[in-house]
């Protein structure tokens, strides 16, 4: 497999300009002759579908939810970064670029990140014009806050519901195009396979989730914007339906999967309370602006937090990282929490939790100010835990939240399959080995509003596309494969529920391929995953039929794909013997326990190629070159 990043060279500031000039255009009159499939309707998919329809393409958009407005982007709380420098505090496109490359622990492609920082400013303009009700200052201008370890205030926000408001902006633009007839929307429809003809992506096979009908849709290009795969851990902050099926099926049809082991564990989530737990709830990272993180100094100190005197508390982030304190980067903060809990100093019933304390902030600013800043989050916390965070410190613990890995894409966001694109969290692109807070929304919208509309035409105008139809053998073969997988799942009639397998896989992944990984643990996981998978296919119980709304069947298909993807994650984590960003290999750390990169051997993107059901995946490397940002040890001390 040849990996050509198509990344322009020369001065970084003008790379995107020059690329845009070099990209071929499609004659406006010809655009409507092209059908483009967009799978997923979140920030990346929704914005792409709406924008491509505005440009004149004929768009079909698919989502598994009952409405495109429900995509999981909606749950993002904190904000969206943009290099507007409205606060006059030293921000610039270059600084956002620099921070993102550094924050990603030098494992991303410079040219992509620079473009992301450039278009970030257009995103804010676009969203404001759409009516996104961002927070304002009294003078009527936009408000900003600093977020997740940034030293400048560049985060735009709409209370604690920024993702919701940005998504509704894209959703409304999309609905307008649906009303115009420029987009055909297929809600409650799940993509189950990708169809290649002459090596090009020419369509998808879907299942109508209401009727069970399997259908093919032909197209000139296919865009996957289906989000990340944190649900491989069973418990994560993702929505229950978030899944890897679309990208995994595309991978099995030839799209390389990049850096699957790069997962982000978010430091501020509500801890697990019992076995029945179905998901973990994120508490916005913005809480760390005013909350102080601590655990008791003594192991096994079970006193209520307010009875533990100041001198017996360990504000470990402030102690270890005096310059960033409670605002250290996500991966660093998460690992520090795991460490103190592993030492036996964790709090709460399970001992897997740390305090996030607002007492000082309330003393300093008053309860009213804190309520204005975080009121809705405090309420949410109280609803879930029955504890009042104005009186008792919150308990938090890290949880899987975002996956930096995903389908490998070139600078134009095309995967290794011609005509197949991946946008947003579904691709591996811009965040390297660790994503900074408030950058996911930025990337999803950058890809959908401002990158794919330019790059898609370049492919279409040169692809030499011939007409295809769904009677062609490639479509029939894919439909048969889908039907076969479905009937297999229904035919097992075993003893165990889908959830019980998913939970088992999740525990294993969390233990062995979670916040810290090591050689022995990963090998153990690689031994066990095939066993779980085998038992799944021999003993799963999926009731009902394929000709109806069957939520158990949907889940079974997704878990069956997670059972394959999990193995690739462990293979990738095992091969990368360095630590970087969210990927912490215990064997590779500095004397004081920080992640130790190995730039000499690992400054590359690992793009894995599918080689068949019983063959080891093939590793392809895209070397990463840093011409603008000097590689250095990341430090938050």
């Amino acid at each position, binding site marked *: 497999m040849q990996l050509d990043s198509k990344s322009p060279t020369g001065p970084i500031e003008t790379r995107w300009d020059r690329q845009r000039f070099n990209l071929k255009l499609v004659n406006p009159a010809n655009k409507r002759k092209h059908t483009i499939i967009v799978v997923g309707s979140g920030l990346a998919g929704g*914005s792409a579908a709406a924008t491509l329809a*505005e440009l004149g393409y004929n768009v079909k958009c698919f989502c598994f939810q*009952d*409405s495109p407005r*429900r995509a*999981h982007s909606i*749950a993002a709380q904190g904000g969206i970064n943009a290099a*507007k420098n409205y606060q006059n505090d030293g921000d610039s496109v270059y600084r956002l670029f620099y921070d993102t490359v550094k924050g990603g622990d030098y494992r991303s492609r410079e040219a992509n990140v620079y473009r992301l920082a450039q278009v970030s400013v*257009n995103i*804010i*303009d*676009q*969203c*404001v*014009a*759409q*009516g996104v*009700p961002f927070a*304002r*200052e009294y*003078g*009527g201008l*936009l408000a900003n806050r600093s977020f997740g370890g940034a030293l400048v205030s560049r985060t735009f926000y*709409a*209370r604690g*519901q920024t993702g919701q*408001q940005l998504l509704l902006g894209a*959703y*409304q*633009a999309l*609905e*307008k195009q*649906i*009303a115009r007839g420029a987009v055909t*929307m297929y*809600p409650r429809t799940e993509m189950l396979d990708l169809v290649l003809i002459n090596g090009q992506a020419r369509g998808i096979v879907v299942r109508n989730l*209401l009727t069970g009908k399997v259908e093919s849709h032909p197209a000139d290009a296919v865009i996957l914007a289906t989000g990340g795969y944190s649900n491989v851990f069973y418990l994560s902050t993702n*929505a*229950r339906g978030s899944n890897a099926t679309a990208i995994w099926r595309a991978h099995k049809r030839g799209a390389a999967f990049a850096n699957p082991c790069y997962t982000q564990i978010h430091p501020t989530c509500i801890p697990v*309370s*019992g076995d*029945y*737990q*179905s*998901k973990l*709830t*994120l508490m916005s990272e913005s809480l760390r602006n005013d909350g102080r993180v601590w655990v008791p100094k003594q192991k096994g100190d079970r006193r209520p937090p307010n009875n533990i005197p100041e001198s017996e508390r360990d504000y470990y982030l402030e102690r270890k990282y005096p310059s960033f304190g409670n605002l250290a980067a996500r991966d660093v903060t998460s690992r520090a929490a795991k460490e103190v809990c592993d030492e036996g100093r964790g709090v709460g019933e399970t001992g897997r939790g740390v305090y996030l304390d607002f007492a000082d902030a309330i003393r300093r600013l008053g309860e009213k100010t804190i309520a204005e800043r975080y009121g809705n989050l405090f309420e*949410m916390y109280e*609803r*879930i835990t029955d504890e009042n965070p104005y009186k008792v410190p919150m308990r938090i613990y890290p949880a899987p939240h975002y996956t930096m890995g995903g389908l490998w894409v070139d600078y134009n966001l095309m995967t290794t399959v011609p005509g197949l694109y991946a946008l947003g969290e579904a691709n591996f692109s811009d965040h390297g080995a660790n994503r900074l807070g408030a950058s996911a929304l930025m990337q999803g919208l950058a890809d959908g*509003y401002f990158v794919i*509309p330019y790059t898609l035409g370049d492919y279409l105008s040169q692809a030499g596309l011939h007409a295809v139809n769904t009677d062609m053998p490639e479509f029939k073969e894919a439909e048969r494969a889908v039907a076969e997988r479905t009937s297999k799942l229904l035919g097992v009639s075993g003893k165990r529920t889908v*959830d*019980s397998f998913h939970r088992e896989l999740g525990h294993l992944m969390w233990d062995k391929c979670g916040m810290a990984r090591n050689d022995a643990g990963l090998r153990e996981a690689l031994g066990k995953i095939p066993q779980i998978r085998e038992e799944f296919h021999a003993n799963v*119980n999926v*009731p009902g039929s394929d000709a*109806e*709304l069957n*939520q*158990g069947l949907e889940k079974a298909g997704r878990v069956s794909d997670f059972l394959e993807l999990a193995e690739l994650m462990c293979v990738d984590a095992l091969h990368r013997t360095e630590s970087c960003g969210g990927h912490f290999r215990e064997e590779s750390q500095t004397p004081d326990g920080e992640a130790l990169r190995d730039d000499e051997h690992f400054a590359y993107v690992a793009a894995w190629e599918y080689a068949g059901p019983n063959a080891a995946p093939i590793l392809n490397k895209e070397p990463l070159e840093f011409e603008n940002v000097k590689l250095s040890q990341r430090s938050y001390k």
Partner: protein
Amino acid sequence: MDLTLHVWRQASPDTEGKLETYEAKGVSPDMSFLEMLDVVNEKLITDGNRPIAFDHDCREGICGSCGMMINGVAHGPMKATATCQLHMRSFQDGDEIVIEPWRARAFPVIKDLVVNRSALDRVIQAGGYITINTGGAQDANDIPVAKTLADEAMDAAACIGCGACVAACPNASASLFTGAKITHLGRLPQGQPERDRRAVAMVDQMDLEGFGNCTIFGECQEACPKEISIDVIMQMNRDYVKAMARGAGGERATRTGGA
């Protein structure tokens, strides 16, 4: 704690449904309502029965997927809380709980507790947006918005589209939903050029979908998990009347033709 559930079971849109009784034993007060249903479903599956179908996704009260009538109350007994954020500590050991789908002509039942809410999408399609193509916007700070207006717009924009307002309304009106979008966009300077057209088009679409009229019972704002106030309905009515007086009714033909 142990509970008795009476759950609406309906195999498909065309079949008749009825309440079936299930025992939920050993429920922890820290479970969410949906986690309690997960446990019931796990047992149903293990015993060889069909699990209860219900919509859900984010389970943090923002996607708007979940929603059911719990003892006759949309989203259950806790105020300002979607079903997924309702916890079992709101119930007592030995309680009987009746669980039904949203009931409204515009929301046909698909299966068990799952209903079709696509009518709400079509109300947005009629005009719940600001027409602006990607790429043509001026600098964001060129449009100053008074903080109070931005805050009011945000209050209305918080709607999650769950449909509880419709389910709670004796008339099955979608006025709170529609009014919320009209108010969100109508409060902002960006929303002014299309304000008249939007109000008329969205209200008309709401009628076409078979939602009832608002007679100001106020049940909607009680049920709303985001506590959207019926002030947005007053705003919708004012915008509609003003728009008609200004002759925006002529927009109807355009809209039907375009949509």
